[in-house]
């Protein structure tokens, strides 16, 4: 589709190869605007086979690892015509590329290009991204499952369909998820409450690991997950895509499609996008038996309309996430006696067959999000962004039909969250960039039927300031934030019918400071020290009742104080033409880490006996290491390895902490074949993942010993195939291909059943319209 008029002037200045000894063959260049000769910051320059780079503020980019020969160079920049050309590379070379605006009116930048798509704050925290080909390999998975491929990120599972992301051993209220720029709020304190997010709507999943409260607000103690859709289209015409997924194990089928269009108006660009996903899965099969009632259904929908021009933009977004998830019947063991009996069985006594039907017990969740956001670029190079969002999370959990015959859910929680974020960014010159922001949030929670957590209303406010200074190879950044949190609960007195309204107020000042140094173009090092905090969550303060699948009677503690964490992390990145290494180290010290501690008391009800758990606060320490590396053994064959180590310690009682992910190791071998015009970028990948046994557990605090270590073999293969002039991306993945029976320490159903057996998935992606190139 070379409709674009390519105006390219490649001023090829042959420079003397300064050093040939390393074999580092460099290609550098500058991207400028055609008319003004102004450098373009944030243009994407890609070379086939070498990936892509983003130009810096001087419009510069650099590629290493070139060999003599021909390369296809592609340059894109929003608001400008894309450039694609073949260059001949002979030794070191410098190129200059000038780009022309692709519209009559909008000759300048529509969306101000930024080096970091994520957010230009806190570059010194450990950050990983999943996008492009990597994202296509995991598309359709639950968010918590999809992110497991990132070192330091694991998941807390409740059976085969419920995954909660865990960053550096922290989850639930200790991490924040931003869905399209809006803080996701949906009873995330619950251990079996997975994030209500459709990963098909994302073009990029990034994880900021470590205390990121400064920019994102209270609760971001363990880190932040950013789920970002593709930017709205700026080139006219309709584009879109269809994604299909079929998996063998639970006979999962998924269809997701999106359609988008941009119009040129006199003053700017108007665009829209529609996206939807349907998913259905039946009972999961472990190597030896099916897990009854583990199917799920999901239907998601989102729509977006945006208007943008050089200085001003406004966008509205509405999305819906609806799911119905069966809860494995073999896990229905509330009392200690039932639990002990279930644990002692080698396999569940539940009917073992395949079925798509979902019976009680099950949970249905409906999450609606409406967002309107706007930006304005001031003449002084400042930028103001305002976002308002309203989300409604409706969670209904159904147990077996009670003998009373009532059909209502046992648990009904409706959480309405409204957020307002105002951020002002200013490039102050002299390498200084600063950001000033205000976050406001209010929530209303309404429960019905059973009492698990009470009704509440909260108001939260925060104000932050972040400054960043870049000079030559050094970047320094610092931030300060103040938060205030007010929450009033509404609940019935246990004995009288009066309404009690306990109030909880907390406030905190947090800070962050970091540095990054680029020793050579290949080697960079960064360090960050910061603090983060969260107020105790509603369940920790006021829960009072039985957790139906854990034999636990949870009792909140009204006197809990805020939880504060101090985090230091450091990372080293090295990249040359064959070797890539990323090493991260972190240490987090908690002051007032809140967790449910088993007490020696037994609570009895009509069904039997339960252990009483009280929420308490201790001082704790989490430290660990994330490593990922890859090495090109040959031009086609790449070996890569990942490692996540974590050590968590309860400093108050000098013992380990419970439910901390075990150490993990992963190794992969990927073979990239030479493709053809109709069969592009084929690859085959074999991987082995080893999860150690979690031996660092507190004594006498669990019903069963942590499961044994296990290793799994995985494989995948994929390519882009041209059929009838239509490009189709296909990949096949096989997980647990040896069909190994194993249990995972981080699965809350490990007491009752094995994990899923082998699973083969076929993913087909059909891009439509202009993007089909």
């Amino acid at each position, binding site marked *: 589709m070379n409709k674009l008029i390519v105006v390219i002037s490649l001023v090829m200045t042959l420079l003397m190869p300064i050093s040939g000894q390393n074999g580092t063959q460099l290609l550098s260049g500058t991207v400028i605007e055609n008319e003004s000769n102004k450098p373009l910051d944030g243009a994407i320059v890609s070379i086939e086979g070498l990936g892509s780079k983003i130009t810096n503020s001087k419009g510069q980019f650099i590629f290493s690892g070139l060999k003599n020969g021909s390369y296809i160079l592609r340059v894109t920049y929003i608001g400008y015509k894309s450039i694609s050309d073949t260059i001949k590379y002979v030794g070191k070379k410098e190129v200059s590329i000038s780009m022309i605006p692709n519209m009559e009116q909008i000759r300048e930048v529509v969306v101000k290009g930024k080096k970091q798509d994520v957010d230009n704050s806190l570059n010194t925290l450990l950050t990983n991204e999943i996008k492009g080909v990597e994202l296509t390999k995991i598309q359709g998975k639950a968010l918590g499952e999809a992110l497991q491929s990132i070192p330091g990120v694991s998941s807390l599972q409740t059976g085969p369909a419920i995954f909660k992301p865990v960053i550096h051993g922290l989850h639930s209220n200790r991490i924040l998820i931003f869905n399209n720029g809006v803080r996701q709020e949906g009873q995330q304190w619950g251990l079996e409450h997975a994030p209500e997010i459709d990963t098909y709507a994302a073009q990029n999943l990034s994880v900021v690991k470590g205390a990121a409260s400064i920019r994102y607000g209270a609760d971001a103690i363990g880190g932040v997950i950013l789920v970002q859709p593709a930017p709205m289209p700026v080139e006219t015409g309709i584009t879109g895509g269809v994604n299909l997924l079929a998996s063998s194990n639970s006979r999962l089928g998924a269809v997701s499609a999106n359609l988008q269009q941009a119009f040129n108006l006199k003053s700017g660009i108007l665009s829209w996008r529609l996206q939807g996903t349907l998913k259905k899965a039946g009972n999961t099969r472990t190597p030896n038996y099916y897990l009854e009632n583990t199917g799920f259904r999901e239907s998601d929908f989102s729509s977006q309309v945006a208007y943008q021009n050089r200085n*001003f933009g406004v966008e509205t977004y509405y999305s819906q996430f609806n799911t119905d998830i069966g809860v494995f019947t073999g896990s229905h063991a509330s*009392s200690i006696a039932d639990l002990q009996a279930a644990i002692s069985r080698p396999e569940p006594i539940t009917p073992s067959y395949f079925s798509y039907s979902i019976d009680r017990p099950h949970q249905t969740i409906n999450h609606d999000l409406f967002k*309107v956001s706007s930006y304005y670029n001031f003449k002084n190079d400042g930028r103001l962004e*305002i976002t*308002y969002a309203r989300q409604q999370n409706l969670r209904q959990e159904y147990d077996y039909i009670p*003998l009373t015959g009532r059909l209502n859910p046992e648990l009904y929680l409706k959480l309405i969250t409204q957020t307002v974020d105002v951020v002002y960014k200013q490039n102050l010159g002299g390498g200084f960039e600063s950001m000033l922001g205000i976050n406001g949030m209010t929530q209303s929670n309404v429960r*019905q039927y059973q009492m698990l957590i009470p009704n509440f209303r909260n108001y939260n406010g925060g104000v932050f300031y972040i400054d960043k200074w870049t000079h030559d190879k050094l970047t320094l950044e610092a931030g300060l934030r103040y938060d205030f949190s007010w929450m009033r609960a509404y609940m019935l007195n*246990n004995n009288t019918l009066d309404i009690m309204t306990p109030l909880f107020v907390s406030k905190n000042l947090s800070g962050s400071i970091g540095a990054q140094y680029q020793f050579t173009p290949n080697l960079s090092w960064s360090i960050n020290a910061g603090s983060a905090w969260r107020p105790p969550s509603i369940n920790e303060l006021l829960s009072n009742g039985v957790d139906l699948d854990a034999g636990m009677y949870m009792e909140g503690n009204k006197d809990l104080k805020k939880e504060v964490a101090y985090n230091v992390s450091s990372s080293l990145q090295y990249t040359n033409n064959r070797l890539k290494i990323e090493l991260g180290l972190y240490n987090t010290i908690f002051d007032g880490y809140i967790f449910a501690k088993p007490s020696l008391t037994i609570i009895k009800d009509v069904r039997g*006996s339960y252990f009483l758990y009280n929420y308490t606060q201790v001082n704790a320490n989490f430290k660990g290491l994330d490593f990922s590396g890859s090495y090109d053994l040959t031009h086609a064959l790449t070996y890569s390895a990942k490692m996540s180590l974590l050590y968590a310690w309860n400093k108050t009682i000098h013992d380990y902490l419970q439910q901390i992910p075990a150490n993990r190791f992963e190794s992969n071998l990927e073979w990239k074949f030479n493709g053809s015009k109709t069969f592009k970028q084929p690859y085959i990948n074999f991987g082995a993942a080893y999860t150690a046994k979690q031996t660092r557990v507190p004594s006498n605090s669990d019903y069963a010993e942590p499961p044994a270590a296990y290793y799994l073999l995985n494989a995948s293969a994929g390519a882009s195939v041209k059929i009838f002039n239509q490009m189709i991306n296909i990949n096949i993945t096989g997980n647990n291909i040896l069909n190994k029976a194993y249990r995972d320490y981080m699965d809350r159903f490990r007491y009752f059943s094995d994990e899923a057996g082998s699973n083969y998935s076929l993913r087909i992606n059909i891009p439509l319209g202009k993007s089909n190139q």
Partner: protein
Amino acid sequence: MKLKKTSLLLTLGALTLLSACNDEETHVSPTIANEALTTVQYKLTNTTDPTDTVTGQWEQLLDNNGNPLPVDVSKANLNLKANSTYSAEIVIWDKTQTPVFNVSDEIKERANYHLFFYQPLPTDTTYVIPAPTGSDTYPDPIPTLLTLTAKLNMSITLTDHDTNTQQYPVGLTTLVKTGAASTGWLRIVLRHQPNVKDGTFAPGSTDLDAGYNVTIK
């Protein structure tokens, strides 16, 4: 300037929406407990003398938040005659509802999913209901460390049946036979066994676990 105005309006609009919160959360819905079996009555009638009836009541009410209050075992006593036969029925009530709800009628309708177990304690035969191990306990008023050693001379037969293809007992009605004078306890457990009822205790989960003091004279 127009744009500035627009963004200002947007902000103001957003703030208005934020403050315009309704107060739905201030109205607290009453707690409806999932499965509130609050009161268990075991009614025995001497088969040779219909006027000789014995009723024991085990009761555990709930507080306003649906959480269990201490068990009332003041009426959980069964004083039986030695060497006698009683026909017995179990009646279960949910007192959290108005009017009080008869749960045993529901169990009868869903007999295919339910099975009662009766365990005289102490016993010298195999336990029908597994004895508690580890941290688990007996229901009140049965002491978890049984303080008596001589067995309770009492045997219980289930006399009703469900309608499963392979019929299994239900246990809403029973026949109780007493032997020589002795004292002990009776534990009654109702198992909920949807699609997995096979006449044994293991499948499913416990709906009810109650106890009685028993004196045979």
